[in-house]
């Protein structure tokens, strides 16, 4: 795969957060290995799902891609250019093309700004759609996300969670981005509202040709919305494949356990299922296990797993996994 095929290319990305001791003279005594050497591509027009449990590094990955965190090492190529090598001004320009939708629709909208101001702010900052065009665009965006354009004078507290998330989507669309990083966009919403927002995201992708990096922990929803899915565990990608391949034939024991743990809303199917119940909790990312990171909870771990880190390799065409036994 060459960088030109992919809209976004993440190459051996590492993000460690230092742990320091001391107040005046700070010295580093360790690091949180939030993201440890991950690589993947996101193709134009597709949705790549990034799933994992809390603390696996999926949100850090999203934020590091946008250079909201400076990567410890590795590169992020967007439209073929290495983002970490761009000047501040070039990066600012590039950000118009990569936008983000946040998890918490209550915390991600400024309560003192009207909805119109919130949606217009990116255009103000980047000096696009000036004058009357800007107001027209706000009205157009509101309509596009299914809200009444008369709402632009209202404040965020007048809206429900699902409506606020629509406002967040409208803001993300204001600058005509090509890539949107959706960081758990529906997990704060009620079940009957989640489907509304997911349908909206799908419609916008179809109409505007958007590319999504969809970060979530809900494996059912990720299967629904993604073209390909990457599974993260403790800072690394353990498996990456087409959506049907990954869910029908998971190769990594963590993916297998994760999928078997997801409840199915069907009592008859539930009765027939055999669950792999993982023992224990996820280890600390400060001091991750040697060799394979999953070995401490893995039902099929062998001595080799503690010694040699399994390579992330293409086990079947377009189906990658990091396990000695895959």
């Amino acid at each position, binding site marked *: 795969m060459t960088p030109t095929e992919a809209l976004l290319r993440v190459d051996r990305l590492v993000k460690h957060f230092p742990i320091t001791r001391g107040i005046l003279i700070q010295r580093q005594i360790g690091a949180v290995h939030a993201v440890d050497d991950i690589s993947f591509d996101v193709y134009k027009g597709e949705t790549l799902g990034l799933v994992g449990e809390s603390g696996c590094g999926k949100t850090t990955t999203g934020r590091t891609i946008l250079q909201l965190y400076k990567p410890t090492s590795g590169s992020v190529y967007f439209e073929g250019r290495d983002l970490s090598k761009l000047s501040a001004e070039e990066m600012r320009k590039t950000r118009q093309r990569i936008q983000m939708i946040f998890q918490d629709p209550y915390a991600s909208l400024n309560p003192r700004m009207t909805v119109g101001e919130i949606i217009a702010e990116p255009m103000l900052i980047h000096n696009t759609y000036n004058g009357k065009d800007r107001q027209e665009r706000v009205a157009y965006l509101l309509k596009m996300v299914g809200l009444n354009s008369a709402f632009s004078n209202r404040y965020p507290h007048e809206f429900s969670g699902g409506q606020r998330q629509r406002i967040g989507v409208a803001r993300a669309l204001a600058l005509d981005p090509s890539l949107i990083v959706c960081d758990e966009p529906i997990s704060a919403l009620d079940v009957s509202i989640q489907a509304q927002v997911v349908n909206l995201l799908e419609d916008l992708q179809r109409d505007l040709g958007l590319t999504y990096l969809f970060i979530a922990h809900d494996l059912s929803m990720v299967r629904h919305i993604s073209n390909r899915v990457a599974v993260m565990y403790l800072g690394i990608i353990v498996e990456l494949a087409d959506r049907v391949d990954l869910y029908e034939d998971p190769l990594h024991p963590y993916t297998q356990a994760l999928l078997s743990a997801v409840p199915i809303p069907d*009592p008859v199917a539930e009765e027939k299922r055999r669950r792999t*119940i993982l023992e224990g909790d996820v280890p600390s990312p400060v001091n991750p296990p040697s060799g394979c990171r999953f070995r401490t909870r893995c039902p099929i771990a062998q001595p080799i797993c503690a010694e040699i880190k399994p390579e992330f390799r293409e086990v079947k065409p377009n189906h990658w996994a990091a396990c000695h036994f895959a």
Partner: protein
Amino acid sequence: MADLLTVQDLETRFRTREGMVHAVNGISFDLKEGETLGIVGESGCGKSVSVLSLLRLIPTPPGKVVAGTASYQGKDLLQMTDEEIRQVRGAQISMVFQDPMTSFNPVLTIGQQVAEPLEIHQGYSRAMAYDRAAEMLTMVGIPRAKERLNDYPHQFSGGMRQRVMIAMALICTPQILIADEPTTALDVTIQAQIVELAKRLQDELGMAIIWITHDLGIIAGLADRVNVMYGGYIIEKAPVKELYANPQHPYTIGLLASLPRVDESGRRRLASIDGLPPVLMEKPNYCPFAPRCSFAVEHCWKENPPLLQVGDRHTAACWVNPKTGGERV
């Protein structure tokens, strides 16, 4: 199986600055010995308030149980004196809460908190209660339980804390365990651990469980019967297989159709329920789901439907038969 708990016409309101909030509007249900009853609904539907009302844990003011009875062992929980209800809580009916991070006292050790119900309800000495607490922690799968009694809540992970909370709730071998969204704050692999644990403990100890959740997935593999709540009402009641195979209320139908499934390989557009959950500032004299319902007919706006018999042990609060679109008689 005999009825263990019978709730009738329970109604709870909260007085707020904006006006009266009608959180629970006259619900009735029963719980049989040893069964698992699921209560399903979205935020604000009244599922937590209804069980908190039973245990008299609604802060008064602003809240108040204004009507209803809850008969348990021949007595009405809602009429008991404070002393009597205290004897029931934690001993015969106990509760597990959603948030394992904030439901413990951070300055007491786990041992003090798990052993406390035994000391209060069954007059155990500290040493005996600690021994029993260690047994209970072992039973819920905490390794090195005896040593860990001296640890504080922050030294446990979220999943482990939820196990400890279950141990605490079950230490007096109650007849009823109320679990209020016990796995919502947990990751899916940890959630599977807790669900398996609850099933195993129910087999071993035989208590009845009321499991409250918004997740129709969990309830499918766990409950014997399900009550679906909406806007402070129970709108459908059925045995679990019947409910999923043959939902009769448009809200239940919509909710099930809006869920993607992890075992579904085809791609379909998710059905969504338009509109928003109701505000509870007034008790409607029409069906509370009518504003969002695609089946609504004139009758729905004139009279709030009671639970109507729609099948064997299956009731739904809807005037319309969603299969035919015609009104039920």
